[in-house]
């Protein structure tokens, strides 16, 4: 089967790749482009570990066909930090111990960033529902929710 040529932007970098038409975007990110930060926990869109944004929309990259990325803008966990500066969400996740094993963390960070972009002033319930598509088996979610709430408060403070 002939490979398809796809042009896209990943974490701000114009990127081209060849893929099988049936390949998932997650597989291309991980296997073709070496961006292994996005994780495959289920392959069926139920765990959120492969969360990325596609034209600023939160998606499970295991459910996106790689050719769908044509002309679109992708953000993965590798693009959250700016140079040697961690994003406030990354800093707070570490400070608040909002990760234990860390496998779900990239997905949670992307989903949290997308949530705060849409709703900078979320209630605890809104954060819990906003992140309900991301499974974490270690933390019981408590520390993750606290970290996201804290970043929201800080970002609102900084915006003032």
């Amino acid at each position, binding site marked *: 089967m002939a490979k398809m040529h796809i042009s896209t932007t990943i974490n701000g970098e114009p990127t081209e790749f060849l893929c099988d038409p049936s390949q998932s975007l997650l597989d291309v990110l991980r296997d073709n482009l070496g961006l292994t930060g996005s*994780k495959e926990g289920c392959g069926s869109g139920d765990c959120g570990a492969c969360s990325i944004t596609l034209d600023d929309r939160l998606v499970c990259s295991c459910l996106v066909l790689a050719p769908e990325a044509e002309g679109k803008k992708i953000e993965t*966990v590798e693009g959250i930090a700016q140079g040697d500066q961690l994003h406030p969400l990354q800093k707070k996740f570490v400070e608040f111990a909002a990760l234990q094993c860390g496998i779900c963390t990239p997905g949670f960070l992307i989903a949290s960033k997308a949530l705060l972009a849409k709703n900078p002033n979320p209630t605890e319930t809104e954060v819990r529902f906003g992140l309900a598509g991301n499974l974490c088996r270690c933390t019981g979610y408590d520390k993750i929710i606290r970290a996201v709430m804290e970043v929201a408060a800080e970002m609102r403070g900084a915006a003032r």
Partner: protein
Amino acid sequence: MSTGQGNSGKYKWIGTRVDRPDGADKVTGRARFGADFNMPGQLIGRVLRSPHAHALIKSIDTSAAEKLAGVKAVITAQDLPEQPNVIVPAGEMQVNLRDITRNILAREKVLFEGHPIAAVAATSDAIARQAVELIKVEYEVLPHVIDVAEAMKPDAPVLHDHLITEGVKPPPTKASNIAKRMDNAKGDIEAGWKQAEVTIEREYTTQAVHQGYIEPHACLASAAEDGQVQLWSTTQGHFQVRGFVSRLLGIETSQIRVTPSEIGGGFGGKTVVYLEPIAVRLSQKSGKPVKMVMTREEVFRASGPAPGGTVRVKLGARKDGTIVAAECEIALQAGAFPGSPLGPACWTSFACYDIPNIKVVGFDVVSNRPKVAAYRAPGAPISAWGVESTLDILAQELGMDPIELRLKNAAKKGTKTSYGPTFDTIGFVETLEAIKNSAHYKTPPKPGYARGVAAGFWFNVGADSSAAAHVAEDGTVTVISGNPDIGGSRASLALMAAEELGVDYEKVRPVIADTSSIGFNFVTGGSRVTFATGLAVVNSVRDMIRELKVRAAKTWGVDPDAVVWEDGMAKPAGSNVGEFEPLSLAQLAATAGKTGGPINGHAQLNAQGAGPGFGVHVVDLKVDRDTGCVHIDRYTAAQDVGTAIHPSYVEGQIQGGAVQGIGWALNEEYIYNAKGRLDNAGFLDYRMPVASDLPMIDALVVEVPNPHHPYGVRGVGEVPIVPPLAAVGNAVARSINIRMTDLPLSPPRLSAAIDAATPKMAAE
């Protein structure tokens, strides 16, 4: 939040909430987990699995798969040597080598749906999947049995013709599915029943649940022509992986080097091997590196869940609440091969309580399910579900507060357990009091909500650990150990090293070494790492301090005994030694070349005295009578942790364990259809708790130091999954006035129970 004796304030580093050393790697996507390794020229391995629950394998024809372009190797059980009938330890569990080689690749029979039969290695995943489809297997399908009670019946389909029940005298003459009977007792149970004024007896069931780690099993094997094997694996114990691969493939241990990846959760489920021996054999056969990753479906169908089972509990008490007799009978699913966590289930059943007369009987039962693996306090949540539910009924019957009833019977220092040991300093009473005095317990539940409480115990494990400490030229320190960091243990090890050395936490870098770079370490399991490997790290640092004192003594021209180590510096022991300015670690490191060369420390030990842990949980919840859906409003978990080395990660363990227990109580279960096939092998249908299902989980950290550790550490990780099953069940019972005895308390089951108990509208 910290209650109890709160000893951690006396330390500089221990008890502080520092950033973990691997934090930045984990939030930037840089950390390498199991599936993140690749090698140039690697092949992809895939496994053919049984569609049947129970069948004889008549023949396997791999010729079509072998001919497919891109396929480089195909193996079946014939490619692994036969193994002796020998039991070896695997985490807190035991495995039989004969069985484990059959679990990895089926031989005479397939024993569960998903049982591996053959494996291929090909140049791409697509080709490997296609090749698996081309393998032809002829089966003779046999009758199967899924349920434990059914499997114990005399006319049940027998899985293993050679399986004679152990622990029964005289031994049975006929094979059955009951692999083992276990008895343990204390006092005189019949005399106990005579003293009882109230007796309660109930039977409970639980279903199999999966550990549900988010990262599927993965490995990458590279076998060279000279016989050396390199293996990268996501595992809780890379030394264990080395041992299994060595035994199962007949390779000398020294020829295998296993490097652990970051591990995306395990909870006991990554203490055994599934893919590694297959990947190594495929690599040997093809001459190429072979990478294998399970799909989520394969994880559910063919990696170890925790067993379900039945528990019958009988309690006898005086009217004042003193428990005088206790009996428990437990039957656990082992899966396709013997070896459920029956011992721990039996031993821990009444361990929270000082009861004079105890009788416990357990049965290990095989059925056509995947072989069970350890899952956080293996076995204990199941017996505690029965015992703590029955205690709640007793409290209701006697009109006692459930915490008061537990306080009246609580195990203390000096209490002799039914399984042998007598407790040293433990913190169960302090943990019960922490809940009793908590804001949660002092506030009545909201209108419409009901409250449940339950306690839990886990003995925790010590075992083998090695560690090394090195000083670099600039005075910074590397601490090397051999336990995969599953939930922040790098931080706890570095904190203890910094405390012991008297240097800043940031000056200590913890490293997890491969099997060739550090001495043996038992698995990351049994809540042992901060306790046992922590002890090894402390001892390696003490060994290094001895050397540092020798170097200072040499610098000053005094006897090493005249030097003391304080606050990260060598100082003269007293004024009679002489007037010397203290020498810092950095100064000693800078002159090391002149005083004797590199400065290192080492330690190796078999840690004894793991302090047992106790937890008490309280939950407020509401049952929607129309849907059977449970809404949790408030949850508090208290636990004696000895000393909280890093309080945030201690709380995280307590919160995470509680939530896994809530999932077990409310929704999680393996569901089989009539053909013996698993109907819910995915995260959509196997419903683990998500963030919106839960409130914040309050963790009350109680600190009663373990006298057998220099910093008072007890294991933390396992206790918190023990109480939630009964805590939730007890709250549900008090909410709807129906005592549910079958887990999970899922909406369909609760709806059915509520409907059955509600007078029919039509009848009115």
